[in-house]
């Protein structure tokens, strides 16, 4: 706790990311109004056939999760909307398994 580096370490207290401070956390603006759970179908399914990659154009994965070389030269440090991480917990499991 005496180590001065600890105080310089960047970590967002909102999402635990080390890429930004909480003042610039994407969760500040990436805030969705979710459909009422009671109105949702009981078991959610992930429609893999409508998932397309913005980076390589192939089906079945989102662009942030593409294994191919990134084609855009603009960095994507904080992650975008098009990632498995942007799914709800139960669907995340289905996507990453």
């Amino acid at each position: 706790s005496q180590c001065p580096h600890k105080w310089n370490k960047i970590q967002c207290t909102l999402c635990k990311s080390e890429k930004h401070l909480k003042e610039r956390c994407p969760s500040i603006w990436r805030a969705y109004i979710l459909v009422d759970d009671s109105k949702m179908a009981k078991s959610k399914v992930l429609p893999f056939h409508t998932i397309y990659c913005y980076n390589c154009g192939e089906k079945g994965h989102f662009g942030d999760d593409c294994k191919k070389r990134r084609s855009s030269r603009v960095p994507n440090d904080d992650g975008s909307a098009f990632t498995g991480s942007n799914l709800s917990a139960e669907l995340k499991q289905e996507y990453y398994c």
Partner: protein
Amino acid sequence: LEKKQKEILNTDYPWILNHDHSKQKEISDWLTFEIKDFVAYISPSREEIEVRNQTISMIREAVKQLWPDADLHVFGSYSTDLYLPGSDIDCVITSELGGKESRNNLFSLASHLKKKNLATEIEVVAKARVPIIKFVEPNSGIHIDVSFERTNGLEAAKLIREWLNDTPGLRELVLIVKQFLHSRRLNNVHTGGLGGFSIICLVFSFLHMHPRIITKEIEAKDNLGVLLIEFFELYGKNFGYDDVALGSSDGYPVYFPKSTWNAIQPIKNPFTLAIQDPGDESNNISRGTFNIRDIKKAFAGAFDLLTNRCFELHSATFKDRLGKSVLGNVIKYRGKARDFEDE
């Protein structure tokens, strides 16, 4: 009222007048309300729609008088309800006998409309790949483009109306992106900009591929603010223009590798937008958009402006938020004052 409508509003974001959303907890929700206000603000009033319909039917009658075998149809942004105030109305004349695009016919139509006091400032463009006449209808002041004997625009308009029915949020986001590009002069296909159909395809794909929308976890209409920012994020920062083409299959948008699209091979410059025409798979509807570099840069800039504005307003006091605009950071609208009602 007449006089009031002619006044130029002394603000760049008139849609916020008497519409305060600064008390919203989430800035994204504030932006959602502003998007809805902007769309309501630029949408035509009942009187404007009436004037436009009357104008078109007078021109149609005049056309039929000159050529009994012909008819006039509206296509483009007016027929899909995706136009900004002051945009041209696109019409096409089709006929049973055909051949109305000949040079002689173009000039005889021009003088016929002039004689009937239905056209001023007439321009006849007879030599172009797509011959047209352009004019201003003097009573309404509406700018009209007439093309001849081509039905592909009518088919595209029909398809777009289906997409609009199937895709909540498409109309709102398309109008915002159009106005955004318009004020940066990046929406003119003749100067390498992004045309209306291409804009629609980008937004259509974005909405139907969004992780939260495909899983039915969100309704687009409730989330227009965050979706607008994420649209700019996708096409300004992340989309692989070099390798990915947009297309559609069974009425839904798809991405596919450009390398598998035979009709556009060989690709000389990979950093270009490629959108497959739903009506003709060999046609790239965005082939004229040679300025994708500036368009991408503008989208990325809009992402930065909007997210910075969100961070700034998120930590501001309610007192400091008053009278501010989120959308105004990327969209300006200057023109005649318009009355608008909340839906």
